[in-house]
């Protein structure tokens, strides 16, 4: 056996190892430094009524979710159905944070069209045009979803599009558990 003929095998094994490492290292498990801490404050204009604003403190006393989305985000489209179903099933207020999208030069009012076509599952949609609130929340990419308890503490962060199984097995039980906690 000539050693040089094992080179392709070794290269392939290295590549495969890297891929396996990447895929088993579930990115959704990376803990957010915000978990267990009070939700970062924001006061942002509403999409449909820009003269009104919504703040994190408005949500006190309720279990609620913050869902980051944008019309330019392909995975948000995939996630949309799941978010809609989840908000209906759990009757949980979901604040949609429209991230670097509505009102920007490139995307204009794409966000409005998006909601018109796909439907609006949100309790309220707020506009974070320049992404400042996103920075405060330590956002890595869109979509991202946070779950807050009645005291306004961040209890869970989901990176990437929520898939149905995650909604059923992680988010729904969590929401029910948080609702039983004292406010």
């Amino acid at each position, binding site marked *: 056996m000539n050693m040089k*003929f094992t080179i392709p095998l070794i290269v392939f094994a290295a590549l495969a190892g890297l891929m396996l490492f990447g895929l088993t*290292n579930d990115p959704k498990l990376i803990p957010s430094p915000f978990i267990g801490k009070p939700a970062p404050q924001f006061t942002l204009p509403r999409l449909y009524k820009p003269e009104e604003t919504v703040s994190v403190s408005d949500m006190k006393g309720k279990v609620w979710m913050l869902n980051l989305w944008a019309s330019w985000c392909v995975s948000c489209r995939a996630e949309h159905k799941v978010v809609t179903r989840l908000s209906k099933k759990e009757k949980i207020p979901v604040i949609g944070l429209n991230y670097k999208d509505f009102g920007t030069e490139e995307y204009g009012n794409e966000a409005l069209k998006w909601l018109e076509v796909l439907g609006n599952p949100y309790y309220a949609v707020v506009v974070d045009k320049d992404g400042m609130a996103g920075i405060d929340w330590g956002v890595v990419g869109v979509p991202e979803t946070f779950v807050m308890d009645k005291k306004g503490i961040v209890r869970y962060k989901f990176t990437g599009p929520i898939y149905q199984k995650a909604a059923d097995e992680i988010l729904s039980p969590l929401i029910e558990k948080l609702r039983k906690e004292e406010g």
Partner: protein
Amino acid sequence: MIPEIGHFALILALSVAVVQGIFPLWGSFNGKLAWTSMAKPGAYAQLFFLFISFLCLLYAFIVNDFSVKYVANNSNSQMPAAFRASALWGAHEGSLLLWALILSGWGSAVAFFSKGIPSIMLARVLSVMGLIGVGFMLFLLMTSNPFERLLQIPLQGRQLNPLLQDIGLIIHPPLLYMGYVGMSVAFSFSMAAMIGGKLDAAWARWARPWTNIAWVCLTLGIALGSWWAYYELGWGGWWFWDPVENASLMPWIIGTALIHSLAVTEKRSSFKVWTILLAILAFSLSLLGTFLVRSGVLTSVHSFASDPARGLFILVFLLVVIGSSLLLFAFRAHKLRSTGSFSLVSRESGLLVNNVILLVMAATVLLGTLYPLIIDALSLGKISVGPPYFNAIMVPLALVLFSVMGFGFFVRWKKDSMSRVLKRVWFPLTLSLVSAFVLPMLLAQDLKIMTILGVFASSWIALAALMWVLSSGRSPFKLPLASWGSVVAHIGMAMTVAGITVVSLYDSEKDVRLEKGQSYELAGYKYTFNGVEAIQGANYKAHRATMDISHNGKTVTTVHPEKRDYGPGSMPMTEAGIDAGFTRDLFVALGEPLGGDAWSFRLYHKPFVRWIWLGAVLMGLGGLMAALDKRYRRVRRRSLEVAQDDEKQTTNKPNPKLSGAIA
């Protein structure tokens, strides 16, 4: 009932494939003739059952059987019948079934045209193809069953993505799959050669036509996809370095390297190990491409997690196929000693350069396609590797490749002298250098460095190929078909290069707002907007604009760009109005209504864009001509005797039953 028959036929096909994958291979070692001779009927039976299964699913689509989940998700009764049929391969499950069907089709074709191939070799080839089929059918049945029923039957199905409701997309996937799956033949031949530990010129002669035809399908499939993106997406672009496109380009590049390497293996008994490695790579990349596109990993790695069973199966399957073939390679490659030696100035050296450049190109594309996925999987953020990366690396590589390509025609095998080669290339070389400077000056009145390089590359390849025919000293009519195929294919490449150069550097586009009766002039053409009407299509409503185009006061044509609405839940579709021409395309896309009689339009002038696809058609034609060369049929008969001797040498203990089988 029909879907259950389809499901059952699929299970039967899997059972047949298991037998076909195990017994002929086993029989080729223990010399049991009865076992090796199961290969051919196995291949036919597998095709038969898969065809039944395919027909059953097709039937479910045609009669709108929405109790089948896959049909309900991808088709509805308002779609025209042709699109309902093509919706079969519009999504994951159906396209996998098509893949398996085409694989069994290739297997049967190999079995049918196998007269000259020794039965031991054939048994091994078909066994390997059977094993690949087992993998695919297991994947189908375990994770992606297209025949799954719904308990609550919907009255109406969901719509197939309107983007895919197009004639280009009816033929594009099957053609591309023909190419992908066709690479499995070269792969199986390579596996068989390594299992037997012997690879000779006869082997290359068997493998070459199959590889050529697979490459032809891949070429045409990619061109069709590019053409479709051009007229359907409405952006006037013909290549986006999109991961889906890259997934098909990688096996094509490696396939191109493989057909050249096979030529050396046949003619000079050289590059053997290299040929095998390329065959493994080409098929591995085809598999990777199929899965990348179909698993949904590309839109987001997270979708991988949405169906962990599928993702895991894909990974394991890829690991097993690529891993086992490379393992076999590691143990057996040293046995395949190349005998032909060659000096620095020789056709072999030229083809080696060709192969290395193509390999680097494929690696470039692979890196650019997978890097964002890896970054995303490691949660390091979302990045996108765009055209700048690909262009920056691929263009210089391609230029080097094209410069070598012209010489390749004139250099002799084994050993040549630089002075002799120069004596023969000076004329086309000078002519193409002159045209590289003169043509842009005359036609475009300017001189960009990229234009010069592009025009030089394309005229150099084309002239070299033509001059080679003229100066070969033989009557062009007596030249073998394979040589003609090579000339045609390389001229096709030249044409594609010319088209890419011109359209990339000289196209013009403009977003304009036009009221009814207004006109706009772009690149010498005057576009006059003559109103929009509302029309009703089979399953869509549309706005259809009328745009008259004139050139120097003379009416050239009238185009009708449309904006289609396929109902709730789908994005509006742009149907561009295109006037196609040999030297230029006029392309009009309808935008948004801007109040009153005004609409926004995007106008394009695309010089020589057709050449890109016409070139690809020539490449395909050339590949086909080469595959149909008389030599392969004639030699097949002669190789029978040669092959018998080979088998006797490789089997240490000559088995009386076995020799009988070959004779």
